């Protein structure tokens, strides 16, 4: 089954000096995890996203489309990256999700991908 692991972290988590130090460590762990998943043939895709200050949102409403600056919702936690993996079942996906490095307060949502 394919699962998408969506990484949500507090947007300001990496802003200060401690955050910058943590970032180096977290990026290294991402590289290691992605490498391992690739080796096992479980990694389909995965990327980090640039910050919400770079986000642009298109809203469709009443047949009209408008372009907005910013993310779709102003929440404390923002989508910061994702993994798309192929594993046998939810327990394996959860085991990978547990190993996705996040800063304190971070969340990883596990969503099965629809199959047609």
């Amino acid at each position: 089954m394919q699962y998408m692991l969506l990484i949500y972290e507090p947007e300001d988590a990496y802003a200060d000096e401690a955050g910058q130090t943590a970032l180096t460590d977290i990026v290294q762990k991402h590289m290691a995890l992605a490498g391992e998943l690739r080796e096992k043939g479980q990694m389909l895709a995965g990327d980090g996203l640039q910050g919400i200050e770079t986000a642009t949102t298109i809203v469709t409403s009443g047949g009209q489309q408008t372009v907005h600056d910013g993310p779709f919702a102003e929440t404390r936690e923002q989508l910061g990256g994702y993994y798309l993996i192929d594993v046998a079942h939810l327990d394996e996906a959860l085991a990978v999700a547990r190993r996705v490095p996040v800063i304190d307060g971070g969340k990883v949502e596990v969503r099965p991908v629809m199959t047609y």
Partner: protein
Amino acid sequence: MQANGKAIAAARPRVVAALAARLRDLDLAEDAFADAAAAALSVWPQQAPRDPAAWLWKAAFRRALDARRRAAVRQRAVLDAPEPEPTPEEALLAADEPIPDERLKLIFVCCHPAIALDARAALTLKVVCGLSTERLARAFLVAEPAMLQRITRAKRKIAGAGVPFEVPQPSAWPERMEAVLATLEIAYAQAYEDAALAGDAAGFAPEVLRLSGLLAELVPDDPEVLGLAALVRFAEARRPARLDDLGAMVPPHEQDMALWRRDLMAEGAALMARAARIGRSGPRQILAAIHGAHLSRRETGETPWADIAGLYDVLLAVRPTPVTAVNRAVAVGEAFGAERGLAALGEVDAERLQSWLPWHAARAGLAEKAGLRVEAVEALEAALNLGPPPAERLFLERRLRALAH
């Protein structure tokens, strides 16, 4: 007729688990079992099966495959000549094949931590024990549509999210087993409370009794699993004594010991002895020991309140909840006097307990013991204002009347 019903209920966990494992579809497994059970009730009185579980397994599996084939045909809209529908008699004659034991896997699926906690207990009782949605709704105090939605959502999650039909890896075992134990404990707490008001007819305590015993059989080396099975047995042993002739609740230390079930007491004691040999304590074993201490009155003639208070001290360390603290205060009051009990109760965070009946009952009991009549009356009235079930209401009203004189 009733014997057949019992045989069907006893076979259910094993057969539904085997069906679910083979079909990877809880709904189909449940439906096929229900069909087979209905057929059994009409066929068995004429022709009793040698092995009811094997009969049900074969009949249900054939029915499930047939249902799947028909669904596939409908989807393709192709009108193949249908195979003749297999009868249960044919199923009976089919080659002997042992039913695979997938019961533990089914319990792990229903109690998966990815399923909402409030849905797990209901789903387990529904799928493993076959309780109806209507009965579950009554037991869990929710409307039937809400219960149906809870169960439907849980099943959809299992199917959609890819919850595996597997016993978890050793590394995940502690967390997963904790989820199973928590689920059964919730189910039992519900059944225990239910019993006082509904007598033996409406509660599902017998199912939880069976389920906890089944788990102890499947996982014989986990002391907390044994502890839970013992806890349920000790508590159920007192069930016949929990209501008096007028239907009022009777607290454990005042119950007629002649009514306690010795068979369950013995089973519980044996489970506790096995757990003790493994030598790893936990909250269910401590709770079982507390229930066991109440039952020891049968041998000694006295409730060992000091021991019970000591056990609550230990429990409070591993499970520091207001519920534990209130129960501990009651035991302290009985063992060392009302003043110390009230002092212990004073340490409890009362804010969250205002709508919890045992909190007011404990306050009333300790205040009465300490000779604080006004406080006792106030606490009893607060308890009655919560609209308790009949057994508790009768008990509280009686105490209120006694205080008035």
